[in-house]
């Protein structure tokens, strides 16, 4: 297992009012993303525990692209990864933001 952590400045606060959301399952080639609205509006943090060791550079690229596209300000992402491919990671991150931006609890 490898632990990775990323801290980014976001252009703006993520929409919606939900406090947390979760998507995905920890399985081979899959991951779960828990997202919580716990940070100041311009900050974004991602903590990753991954079964695939040695892919820090790929994570850096995927997350940089994600923060640029979705501006997830105020959100803390906690990820348990079972060795998902970068496209699956991007998809789950996008789903997590979409879910927490929905109305409801």
């Amino acid at each position, binding site marked *: 297992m490898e632990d990775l952590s990323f801290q980014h400045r976001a252009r703006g606060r993520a929409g919606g009012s939900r406090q947390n959301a979760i998507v995905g399952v920890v399985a081979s080639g899959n991951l779960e993303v828990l997202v*919580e609205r716990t940070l100041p509006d311009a900050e974004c943090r991602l903590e990753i525990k991954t079964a695939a060791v040695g892919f820090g550079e790929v994570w850096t690229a995927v997350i940089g692209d994600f923060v640029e596209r979705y501006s997830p300000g105020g959100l803390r992402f906690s990820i348990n990864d079972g060795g998902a491919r970068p496209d699956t990671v991007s998809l789950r991150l996008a789903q997590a933001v979409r879910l927490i931006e929905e109305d409801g609890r």
Partner: protein
Amino acid sequence: MTAPLHVAPAERISSTSFNEASARTRVELLLDPGSFVEFIGPEKRQISPHLRIFDLPEQFDDGIVVGHGRLDGSPVFIAAQEGRFMGGAFGEVHGAKLTGLLRAARQIRSTPVLILFDTGGVRLQEANAGELAIAEIMRAVMEARTAGVKVIGLIGGRAGCYGGGGLMAGCCSALAVSEPGRIAVSGPEVIETNRGVEEFDSRDRALVWRTMGGKHRRLLGAADVFTDDTMQDFREAALDLLGLVGSFGLDKLKAEQMRLGDRLRRFGACEDAVDIWTAEGIAHAETVPELSADQFIALANRIGRTSRDAR
């Protein structure tokens, strides 16, 4: 971003496969919309204390979703195992969440429990804690039932219901199962490893399904209801069973013992599930695996055998 695809809830529940859905999706679609409240949700991070030691990934809910909600307006407790995380296997935290839910139901007495099994049994990396959890849960099921709680098992996930999960299913008030939902204690590979390929060929998928699959479990009377694979079908099956289950006591246990003894006398010499179906009076029993859900349900209703009076 384009606007999200909004599918009407009624359409979603009838078009979503139980077998393919995640535990969370199953809970969401089985219960009345928006009624689910989770206990010890993923944000509590109540993860397994063991997996890190083995350098294995964790899941924030430890592979089981527990909580309460409403089914057709009435309160229910619900637990759903995530079969894709470690094969839905029982570990310390996973098991404790189900034990706690059943004990809460025992205290409250009037609220039934739905358990959506999807498990290979005990998690090998925390085997002692997992085995203890199995024993605790079986006791908690029986104590809840003794207090008047209906405990309904719904089985149709990809991991099936094996190992300790199979034992728990045997303790439930009633079971609903779909064709892909297999129920047994030892799995095909375990039997073959221990008893040899002549006893059980685990690569013979047709043999596995006609021995452990939902159709056979319904015809043997282990499962009361056979259902098609959609979430709508499982919701209706759960409601049916809640209406059917009667009171529980020593008489029921004695009746169940009689039922199982009778079953062994009638079918103990059979070599294959097809022999059992033939002995049950089913013409062309070898075609049972090919029947559609509707055709099979009609056949099973004609045979009638269920554990309803015994469990």
